[in-house]
């Protein structure tokens, strides 16, 4: 039993040295460059977690205060969403939210603009990480169904794109 503990202690010291000299500096660099709020690495029973200061990482877009009213009223979503299967309903050009969070349209984008399939229309901010909202078809942007800074749930219609004939 004591042999084993000695071995564990030595392994532990070696791991700490490696963490301090290589792993942590590398992680700090990666976290700084990324838009992520948090990074975690697990290995052999060790775990290193780095987190940016709260305000920096998770502040929602400036315009988006907490939703003042319920995201969804009971019953409403069941009826309004019963046809919203996949997040992107290509056939009708409905662009659905890829995640639950706060929506922000791409800066400068205008209603009526011509868009191609895959073009960026905006973002849904999830804890500081931006999820892209893209056009499912070639066509024209007809409308945004939600306002900038509004809370959206997964699958919620965000925009309408009229497909080219």
């Amino acid at each position, binding site marked *: 039993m004591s042999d084993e503990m000695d071995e564990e202690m030595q392994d532990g010291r070696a791991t700490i040295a490696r963490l301090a000299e290589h792993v942590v500096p590398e992680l700090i660099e990666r976290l700084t460059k990324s838009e992520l709020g948090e990074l975690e690495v697990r290995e052999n029973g060790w775990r290193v977690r780095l987190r940016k200061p*709260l305000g920096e990482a998770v502040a929602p877009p400036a315009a988006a205060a907490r939703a003042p009213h319920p995201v969804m009223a009971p019953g409403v979503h069941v009826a309004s969403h019963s046809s919203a299967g996949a*997040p992107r309903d290509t056939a009708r050009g409905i662009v659905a939210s890829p*995640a639950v969070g706060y929506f922000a349209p791409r800066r400068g984008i205008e209603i009526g603009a011509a868009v191609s399939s895959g073009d960026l229309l905006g973002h849904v901010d*999830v*804890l500081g990480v931006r999820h892209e909202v893209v056009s499912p078809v070639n066509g024209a942007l007809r409308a945004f169904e939600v306002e900038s800074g509004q809370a959206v*749930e997964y699958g919620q219609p965000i925009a309408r794109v009229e497909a080219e004939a």
Partner: protein
Amino acid sequence: MFSKILIANRGEIALRIQRACAQLGIPSVVAYSEADRDSRAVQLADEAVCIGPAESRRSYLSASALLSAALVAGCDAIHPGYGFLSEDDTFAEMVRAHGLTFIGPPAEVLERFASKAGTRTLLGKHGLPTIPGSPMLRDDAHALAEAERIDYPVLIKPSAGGGGKGMRMVRSPRELQQAMTICRSEAMAAFHDDSLYLEKWLEDNRHVEVQVVVDRYGNGVHVGERDCSVQRRHQKLVEEARSPAMSDGQREALCEAAIKAVVEAGYENLGTLEFLLDREGKFYFIEINCRIQVEHPVTEMLSGMDLVCEQIRIAAGEPLGYTQQDVSLRGHAIEFRINAEDTAHDFRPQAGVVETYLPPGGPGVRMDSHLYSGYEVPPYYDSMLGKLIVWGSDRHEALARSRQALDEIVVDGIVTNLPLHRALVHHRTFLDGEFTTNLLDRVGSAAFLDAAAAA
């Protein structure tokens, strides 16, 4: 107290948490995946937020989706239920980092009790008997020496993972040497880690667990034990309290030891300590579950407590407000887990539409289920459809009411394990309270079904 709680789970436990929130006058928000849009919890919700697609990894297991939903809906606490992220200390820490409360043990408590081996050492120091075992094995010679010391039969277990992989019971040095090679390669294949250790194998053991409730200030009570010896491949099927295999003195010793150890070790919130009970009535601690458990209603029926409300109160920082003397346990309760499983075909999980659902009734009968007639059971999640819990003033009365309730319940359109439950409540071994954890696997469920058919 909290102003609004996000329910980060599905099925019957989402309903159970909704009920507790309503009881405490706290609005709740149901987080649901696309596959659960038509679920009972969503229908009954004050508010509901779709968090992702059917795939759990992107919905009920997605920490960021759940947390984002909580923030968007203005919640200040998250209840994780059981399974999914309920014992994930990283999630608990994330929840706290965003200024919300995780309803369960705090992250550092979850972390302290995360490793099974570490928890055994910790609670062993605080007086709980643990199962005799070895340290990590260096080589075959070390394994042979340790097995000799522990005494055969022994169980070879991998340090990482679970689910029976890399696990073998051996009765002799010869078997040990042969099995070590197999276990190493299985463990390596499954967990990328081939370290093994030994544990004493208990013949004909029973599974008994103790419910504990501990507040932030070190006040704790136990709420008695539950016997979960009716299992199939390590999955519990029937749970009851009190344990039919223990005397009052044994129960008292077990429950007192359990609550004393966890309070001393700094546990907080609801928890369950699992023990193996051997033929001689000796108990050995195996692991702690840091969450509300599926079988918690058994304890609620005996104690009159609402354990989910207790969980929420404690997470909000309220003191317990009562002592062990205030906890009194009355009568006997049995829970039957009703699963969408085909007992005739290796318990294959089933999905599909429940055409008719009629819950049973009568004194002492409680049905916790998310079923309704016309509900489509999605294929993505676990197969539990609900739990029938039956209380009686003694075990005899509880069994009689159970037989009646199991006859009354109707779940049509989907294959369930109800035939097995109906067989069990007529079977001598179960009636005599003589079930052991490996009995169903050893004898096979067909034997029980056949015996019932012949009767």
